[in-house]
């Protein structure tokens, strides 16, 4: 199993239930960021790599039926949900959501999870990340 973009997230380590987002922490400002920053955009001070998540609160959501405003439609295949999830570190993440409109509401607890998106040229399973409601 291979992440589609290992700059953005990593697979769960041994003993972990969920993947983690790869972010930055700036000790001088106390701020966290995602994706990783070269330096703190507020104080210009140094940052260090940190893992973020994997659980947050749903700030907003939608369900995307026609992604390019009429030019492309998912048709009968449905579409996909997307949301903004606030992590406890103060970082807001935009990401696809698992499920349909009935599966989430603003304020829900959301957990990071993996989602298969096919295979690479060598047959390795590719995965990206999504959030799912925790029940």
């Amino acid at each position, binding site marked *: 199993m291979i992440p589609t*973009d290992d700059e*953005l997230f990593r697979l769960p380590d041994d003993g972990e239930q969920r993947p983690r987002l790869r972010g930055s922490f700036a000790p001088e400002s106390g701020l966290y960021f*995602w994706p990783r920053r070269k330096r703190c955009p507020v104080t210009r001070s140094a940052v260090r790599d940190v893992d973020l998540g994997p659980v947050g609160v749903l700030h907003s*959501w*939608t*369900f995307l039926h026609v992604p390019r405003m009429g030019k492309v439609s998912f048709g009968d295949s449905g579409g996909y949900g997307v949301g903004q999830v606030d992590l406890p570190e103060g970082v*807001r993440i*935009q990401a696809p959501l698992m499920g349909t409109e009935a599966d989430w509401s603003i304020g829900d607890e959301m957990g990071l999870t993996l989602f298969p998106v096919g295979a690479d040229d060598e047959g390795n399973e590719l995965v990206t990340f999504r959030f799912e409601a925790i029940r």
Partner: protein
Amino acid sequence: MSLLARDVYVVGVGMHPFNNDGVPVYDMAYDAGIAALDDSGLDFPEIGALYNGYLGGGIGMGVRVAKEFGLTGIPVTHVENASATGSCAFGEAVHAVAGGRVDVAMALGFDDLNRMGGIGRSGKPGLGAEDVMLPAAFFAMWATRRMHECGTTVETYAQIAAKNWNHARENPFAQRRVDHEMTVDEILGSTMIAYPHTSKMACAAGGGAAAAIVATEEVARRIGGPAIKVVASQQQSETYTDGHVFLGAVIGPAQMTRDTSAAAYEQAGLGPGDLDLVQVHDAFPVEELVYYELLGICGEGEADKLVATGETSIGGRIPFSTDGGLTARGHPGGPTGLAQIHETVLQLRGTARLRQVDGARTGLCHMAGAGSVCVVHILQRS
């Protein structure tokens, strides 16, 4: 905030109608530029600098278009800032005149969104965060959050869209012109794009071109006619706010519009109460709704009442998107911000015909662009 170093006036505007007909971009750009020159009465050799705004078109297209106007040797510069491209090209022209680089400058925007590629992170089509977090999703999430926080209804979004469709009925340059009054029911009954936004709430993506010529007071006096002065030209990028989003389709935090408009009001020595009409980046109706508040037209949480009472329709207290806005006039990309300038100049001259705002003297143009940038211009009839 300092005033412009020299007074700057809009002395000519021109457009090629926004459309979905596949008209070659090169031809539309030429037509819009010539229309602006004709409107000003100037010939191209009098233009000291040309700023071309486009997202597609390829390397050097702006210079190639300029050759059709004439080989005069002037500096020709490509400007790109996503949806705010045309507004930024206009701003560059304004500052070229204000700063003394030239006495006359032209801003020309052209594009056809149907001929451009999509947004995406290179090399991983369909898998990158920006391939799935598209603008339609971003603004829809604004809309659902607004519904959660303020109790805004889907009908309110549809009312704003219907208003803008109906404004466009009287605009010959608009892409979406219907032969009947657009209703809330028709807006709500169109294809769902991204809840709660339907296809008739989404901006019209197509092609088009628009141009504006700005000049010093001396040149404006020589040309004669109504003097439309640029009393504010402000552009900002984002600053950090709580819940800052870096990845996916982003148009910056709401604070960016508040800060940019505040700087424009200060530069102009005006306030929101002095405005007679406003054009905004209404890619989706939630944007226009939120901008009522961010531009200071009403207080926090009061925007829905403006819609209910029709205050932002032509004939109301402060009409927004008088040419149909991005919703119905259209949003080709590069020319969109210049179409706002075109519309505002016609309104301030009193030549907007059936969509004329009575007594219009001061107009504000606002654009936001992915990335993120915000541009605000205020024009005033002297």
